[in-house]
């Protein structure tokens, strides 16, 4: 129990962010029309590409002679970039189709 409270105290900012963000996420996409489900999914898909920042941090933290970490890290940055760039571009193309409706 004491451990739990200590853990909470040590990480209180993060726990606050997590809980608030859960509510923001739910609030933000409430009442979305069915037509937009796929573009929204695709846009959210691009946003979680933010994981690439973790891959960059790994790289910046690696020593230049740790070849295993560097090659895996480079691969991770590459895959993360695919997620980000591909995700945003695909979403934009989908939404472009909707614009023509007018």
């Amino acid at each position, binding site marked *: 129990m004491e451990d739990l409270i200590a853990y909470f105290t040590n990480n209180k900012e993060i726990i606050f962010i997590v809980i608030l963000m859960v509510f923001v996420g739910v609030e933000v996409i409430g009442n979305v029309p069915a037509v937009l489900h796929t573009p929204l999914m695709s846009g959210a898909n691009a946003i979680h590409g933010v994981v690439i920042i973790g891959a960059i941090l790994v790289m910046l933290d690696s020593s230049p002679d740790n070849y295993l970490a560097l090659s895996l890290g480079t691969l991770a940055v590459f895959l993360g970039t695919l*997620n980000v760039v591909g995700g945003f571009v695909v979403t934009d193309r989908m939404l472009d189709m*909707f614009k023509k409706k007018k």
Partner: protein
Amino acid sequence: MNIDLIHIIYLFGSVTFILGLKMLSNPKTARNGNLLAAAGMTAAIVGTIFLKENEVSPIIYYLIFGAILVGTVVGWLTAKRVQMTKMPELVSLFNGMGGACAGLIGLIEFPKVAAHHPEKLGIVLAGMIIGSVSFSGSMIAWAKLNGTLRNAIRLPKYNIVNTLVLIGLLAYAVYIVVAGAYDPMHLYLLFTLAIVYGVLFVIPIGGADMPVVISLLNSFTGLAAAFGGFLYDNQVMLTGGILVGSAGTLLTLVMCKAMNRPLYSVVFGAFGETAASAGGGESQGSVREVSSSDLAVQMNYSSKVLIVPGYGLAVAQAQHVVKELETLLEERGVEVAYAIHPVAGRMPGHMNVLLAESNVDYDKLKEMEDVNPEFAQTDVVLVVGANDVVNPAAKTDPTSPIFGMPILEVENAKSVVVNKRSMNAGYAGIQNELFFRDKTSMLFGDAKKVLGELVNELKNLD
């Protein structure tokens, strides 16, 4: 200075993600919302790279820039070149890449964290497991959507097997953390187990449910990114990840609701090995074929025609000829409308997008709940390349893998004409008894080609 600036950039990034998602849920602002989030993402990435500018060896910068450059070119070209009909599988593919990224981060960080911050080991493993499951699951979803993997593969007792694998996976992770088993062998074994679980998780799920699965895996990757944020105490990863995790989960539930199918029945599917009992390829009697000239006459003397578009229409790019058919029939005083199933095609909204492209009036696109009572007063229903969404087995056959999915009740119409390329089973891999009914006739061939013939026959009737 740089260290302080980065927090402002991260705050900006987080705000753009929230606003971007908000704007994406409204048709008017959606496109700008996407661009805004992209701008925030770019700022966060560039900021991160230059955060430590004085301490890092140049070779690492070259590697990072090289990877980003190649990734940008490949991602951009792939996203630009792919056909509209292939969009859903592409989303799945990109989602898998994000998951793999999270999985790799876990693999690299494990030895470092084990040596210096063992209290953060649980976070590293959680991010790695979720990312890896999302990766392999997305790859299976991708293979299913592009047709490489045709049918739902159900191992005997797959639900029990999957649950056991999941429990084993979690227990193993807990063991590594608690017992301090820091040998890399354990890490690689756990990684492999997570990949296997992702495959087992998605492989029994039918193609019709794939959009829901992709949305679910999407929120998994968000969660994996959030664990990365926890690990590095990085706010933009944390906010972006949790935001997608929670919005993605809600979106998954909303999509399930649109299909009137609870999430557990999507994930656990039909219990037992019932997929085959619905008759994979066996014939259930004879079908009646109709020629385009007969159909033209029949439609000409109808008072109401409903068109049910499906994936076949998208594949054949038949949206323009469908519009032409609509115009011709309306000139002859026939009432024409479109019945849109929520998951027609391979993604929600797919048909709306395609028909909007050929200038079909928005009011003519009727949603399932509104149009179902209308079938009884309809003379001809023309099903263009749809199959599972009009399969009556979803209502009548509890052993069918699609049982419980709401369908367009076309069987209530006076006559049903189904355009298909062949008698092959639909996406869920099951036969459709509708095709064998007395009032159903088949119009075989590529949608664009046969509907073109139908249009010509109609013109010749004058």
